[in-house]
């Protein structure tokens, strides 16, 4: 499954090449054109095809230009220096809570040199320290190098670091859950790979973007180049449906297994009402479950796309993902499949042009 391949691949923001290569391999035979731009976005075009009764689909002319974006990059770390004792100083790339860093395995650089982020032994930590969040500002990556020169033979300053987690099916029953690294946003990438295999009445610009996690930067320049008539961003979004104490009314944001999440507003944009209505209407008509993302935190590529050039009507559809921005995440393949179905149906519903 493409989600597994993409989840296991490594692509911290600014270093998406390995993910891009895998995606291109998966979509190449289904697309009419592709290009890789200056920021490393992979822009794929699948031209509009009008289904003809009993025959091959034919190419249409003057179709609606629809950009569908999913970001290739993942949060991670970057090596900022090599210490005298052979350990590596690092900085975070993207939003990571320090509290998920202790006691984790990582892979460093293009050579995937294995390393670990350690933690002081509990025996040596004063009780007062244990009541505080771990201070990871001085934390290092240990690759087992005896000293600086041994480390320098394996890694270098500026090497990107990804977490180590392997895709695995957790539930083959009702929820069809899987776990793996970087479902934010390899889930969106995998949805888009599947979408690019279908026929639509619009020119589908499937854009696998770079650098979303550091400020929606890939989507911004890709949208400028394409100048689409409308755009959809595909995401793996927050699913915080953990148990709560009585009286705690914090939003779960989304709930696992309840279908694709539609954004009505987030920190980066307000969706185009016509597109949001189209998605809701399509879901209802097709009997596809959906939910709203019940929080206005976080941003997606839509935040950059809707401001491109003279402005682009945009909307965001997301697969709920538990534990995003942590080393290992979890989603329901039911939600994944429903997201593919909903976006596919919505693209087909664009037959008559931009909804009014």
């Amino acid at each position, binding site marked *: 499954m493409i989600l597994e391949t993409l989840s296991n691949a490594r692509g911290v923001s600014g270093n998406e090449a390995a993910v891009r290569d895998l995606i291109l391999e998966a979509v190449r035979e289904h697309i009419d054109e592709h290009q890789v731009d200056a920021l490393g976005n992979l822009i794929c075009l699948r031209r509009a095809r009008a289904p003809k009764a009993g025959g091959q689909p034919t190419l249409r002319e003057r179709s609606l230009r629809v950009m569908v974006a999913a970001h290739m990059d993942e949060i991670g770390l970057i090596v900022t220096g090599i210490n005298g004792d052979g*350990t590596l100083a690092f900085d975070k790339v993207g939003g990571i809570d320090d509290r998920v860093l202790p006691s984790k395995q990582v892979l460093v650089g293009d050579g995937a040199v294995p390393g670990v982020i*350690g933690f002081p032994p509990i025996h*040596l930590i004063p009780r007062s320290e244990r009541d505080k969040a771990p201070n990871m500002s001085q934390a290092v990556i*240990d690759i087992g190098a005896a000293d600086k020169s041994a480390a320098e033979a394996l890694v270098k300053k500026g090497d990107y670091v990804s977490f180590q987690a392997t895709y695995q099916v*957790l539930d083959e029953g009702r929820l069809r859950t899987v776990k793996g690294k970087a479902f934010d946003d390899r889930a969106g990438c995998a949805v888009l790979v599947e979408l690019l295999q279908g026929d639509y009445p619009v020119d589908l610009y499937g854009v696998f973007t770079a650098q979303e996690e550091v400020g929606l930067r890939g989507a911004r320049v890709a949208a400028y180049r394409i100048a689409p008539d409308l755009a959809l961003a595909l995401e793996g979004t927050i699913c915080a449906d953990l148990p709560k104490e009585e009286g705690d009314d914090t939003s779960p944001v989304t709930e696992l297994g309840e279908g694709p999440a539609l954004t009505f507003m987030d920190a980066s944009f307000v969706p185009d009402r016509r597109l949001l209505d189209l998605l809701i209407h399509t879901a209802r008509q097709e009997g596809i479950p959906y939910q709203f993302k019940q929080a206005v935190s976080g941003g997606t590529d839509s935040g950059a796309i809707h401001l491109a050039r003279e402005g682009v009507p945009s909307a965001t559809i997301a697969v709920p993902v538990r534990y995003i921005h942590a*080393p290992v995440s*979890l989603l329901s393949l039911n939600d994944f499949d429903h997201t593919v179905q909903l976006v596919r149906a919505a693209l087909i519903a664009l037959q008559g042009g931009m909804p009014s």
Partner: protein
Amino acid sequence: MIDTTELLRQLSQAAGVTGYEDDVRALVREALTPLADEFRTDALGNLIAVQYGEGAEPRPAIMLAAHMDEIGLMVSGFEGSFLRFHTVGGVDLRTLPGQEVTVHGVQPLPGIVASLPPHVLSPEERSKPVPLDKLFIDVGLDAETVRQRVHVGDLITMRRDFLPLAGNYVSGKAFDDRAGIVSLAVCLEMLRGMRHSWDVYAVATTQEEIGLRGATVSAYGLAPDIAIAVDVGFGKQQGVSDSKIVEMDAGPAIAMGPNVHPLMHQRLVATAKRHELKYQTEVIAGASGTDGWAIQVAREGIPTAVLSIPLRYMHTTVETLCTRDIERTGRLMALFIAGLDDAFAADLGLQKGASA
């Protein structure tokens, strides 16, 4: 020749939370089978591998102890589809968020210690550790299925692949004290090719992490004349004062302090010097926190020594060590045992065959 890295890998991957060491014991027994004349398992599950000496009966005996059990978690309840848990042994809660685990239910289930993404956390929340009552394990199943496959009291182990690092360094879980077990195997193998007059009881102990309980009863049961406990020691690492550590890749640390009989210490040091083995010394001012602390006061008291294999990040899932230190520890014990004679017994005030 024993492949120390491979044996450590096998033992590290096995599940053996305190009190439930059966799987580890089976592996240890298999590994030691060619090296032991006889095996016994006692009432608390300690595995005793005997290698008889060549001296005239009644022969004095030395007990070597390394513990099989590991720290872990235990299911304490359900919260919807999530699991609540207790800790078994000294687990630092701050190392848990984002950690993968195995829940030993009806069948082993992969799981994740849940964490919330930074998007939905306040700075206030991020400044504190997640308390136990807000830590949950997610096995990706619906609430009904979870209750069929998991029960209160089921054990949970940390899930962490064995990771070879640079040089001779490796990282993984439960090296505390499976590394000690491997050193026992190295010792017994080396003794097979040497002459030794004393009997050797190599004991893989149980329940060390919650109070040295296996060692307490096995030392009573065996009533050895002298004993060496092998455990892991705090290896030099970032964030820990240099005064509390032992050096990595510098050989076993031969402890001194109240837990160690001065003559045992002296003879171990002399043995290391004579054979030009890398070693270091370590001062332990009081309780050593090792099986040696219990063995020393078994029955009428037993002259005891403590050896520490340097280990970074103790009690995390990324415990890291240099495999050469395991081999050096095993060799030191074997050479020490080969040199045991009546004169040393006399120096210690032991009557020949006092244990008989």
